């Protein structure tokens, strides 16, 4: 595999993606909601944290180590702390999942829809170079958006929350593991699912609708975290990471086997 050719595909697709507002708008808007609007509502609007229900059940199942972090906090502080450092955490897995599936839908199925795929497949780029270049163009921006969102969120929470908590509460080890281990694994899963879907479907919309199925298990994590059923603590994060890596390898292998010129062309004519 020639790295310069992989980067050539990456550059071409990135130019296309960044000029497409149908792609860029959701990729930028969703993180904006998660990293600015949610913490602002929690910390700036009076009574938001005190009106949050159901946090009591979460406190009851918190591990000892976490409980020690909230010792001395009043109810408002406890609720705000748990929301900002625990409950909002899985939302940041939605960012790479959504961004990677939207970009890769456009990159793989979008080429079919715009009827540019045959000219691309006629070039002497290998299947592997095309596939890796297109996967990179989905992976790199989705991870950049995730990391930037994490940095902005951390800065926002620490800046606005300092007066409430009397100290900086982020980043925690949980967040670092989620952002640097789980998010990339989720992003790869989103891309791999989209590759498989894109080979089979004829258009971008169809690919996008099917590939967002990757969001379903992440929504499960959001609910699990909110109700204290599945808390994203280091041991759980590492187990989830291992599960995602296995899933990624399996789906990627299927995707690589399916990413064949003939198979792709048979779906456009």
């Amino acid at each position, binding site marked *: 595999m020639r790295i*310069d*050719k992989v980067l*050539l595909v990456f*550059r*071409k697709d990135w*130019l*296309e993606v960044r*000029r*497409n507002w149908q792609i860029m708008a959701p990729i930028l808007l969703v993180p904006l909601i998660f990293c600015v609007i949610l913490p602002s509502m929690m910390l700036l609007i009076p009574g938001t944290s005190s009106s949050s229900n159901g946090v009591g059940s979460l406190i009851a199942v918190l591990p000892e180590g976490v409980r020690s972090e909230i010792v001395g906090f009043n109810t408002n502080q406890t609720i705000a702390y748990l929301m900002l450092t625990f409950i909002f955490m899985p939302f940041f897995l939605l960012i790479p999942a959504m961004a990677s599936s939207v970009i890769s839908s456009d990159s793989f199925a979008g080429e079919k829809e*715009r*009827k*540019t*795929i*045959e*000219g*691309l*497949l*006629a*070039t*002497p*780029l*290998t299947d592997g170079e095309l596939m890796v270049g297109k996967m990179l163009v989905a992976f790199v921006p989705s991870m950049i958006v995730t990391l930037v969102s994490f940095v902005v969120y951390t800065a926002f929470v620490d800046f606005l929350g300092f007066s409430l908590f009397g100290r900086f509460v982020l980043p925690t080890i949980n967040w670092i593991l989620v952002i640097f281990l789980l998010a990339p694994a989720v992003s790869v899963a989103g891309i791999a699912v989209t590759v498989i879907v894109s080979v089979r479907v004829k258009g971008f919309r169809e690919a996008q609708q099917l590939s967002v199925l990757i969001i379903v298990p992440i929504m499960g994590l959001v609910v699990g975290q909110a109700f204290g059923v599945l808390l994203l603590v280091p041991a759980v994060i590492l187990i989830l990471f291992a599960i995602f890596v296995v899933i990624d390898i399996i789906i990627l292998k299927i995707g690589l086997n399916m990413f064949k*010129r*003939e198979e792709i*062309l*048979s779906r456009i*004519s």
Partner: protein
Amino acid sequence: MSGIEAEGLIKRFGSLTAVDRLNFRVDTGEIFGLLGPNGSGKTTTVRLLSCLIAPSGGSARVAGFDIVKEPLRVREAVGVLTENPGIYDRLTALENMEFFAEAYGISNKAERDTRIRELLEFFDLWDRRGNKTGTFSKGMRQKLAIAKAVVHRPEVLFLDEPSSGLDPKSAKDIRDLMEDMSRQEKHTIVLCTHNLEEAERLCSRVMIIRRGVPLATGSVEDLRRKLHGAPELEVRLEETNEKLLKAATKLRGVNAVNVRGGNSLAFDLDDPEAGTPDVVEGLVKAGARVKSVNILRPTLEDAYLELTKEDQA
């Protein structure tokens, strides 16, 4: 050396045989026409020969490389203009050309820039190089698609309806380019077209296929003769009568005479051009007043329609 050699090439999609035992050879520097109605297997043949799909049977060599064993080498050596221009609307003309030039292996930037400028100027697109191609007209897009197909000076070029959507001047420019590439640079060109006049003008040989089966292969002249016989001499007279007709049949070199509408006589001659003066002189001596004389040659269109009439029914 042959630009293309195909032997018993077969492509099946499930129970459908899209290409059925295709045998043909295209010499280096030749412009070869691939003709046939929609769904006849032209596009599948081009996809097979440009290694976009694998054959179900048979073999072929393109630019000296085996399409099954050396697909990457084949793709490096060929340029393909597909049915759709296949250019990226959100990229500028220059960005499109740069991408394809690099993809086809022109890694030297100076060489790439020179070649791109040369092509964009040839196609009158240099002034629009910074515009996104989504704003281009159909003709401009087609010209850019041809430019990207030839950017790496391919040994073998597959062109699917190259003059589609082009104005007469641009269509002529493309034909001139193809002739130059074929004659001066010795590129082998396979032209898929429905424009039979264009095929007749450019192609040294053509193959007519229907439902994946080759019906006829040869020079345009060969096909015309095979299907419609030799050219005829048509003489239009002021008036005809029995006496003139009898005299006409006895003229030297005349094999047969047919009466056509509008006082016209069609002469079957061994060599219409050489025989014309004698026929005209003989008719005038017999008292005829000649209004016009034409040599009627059956066109490639006549041959094509004859061969593909089952599909038109």
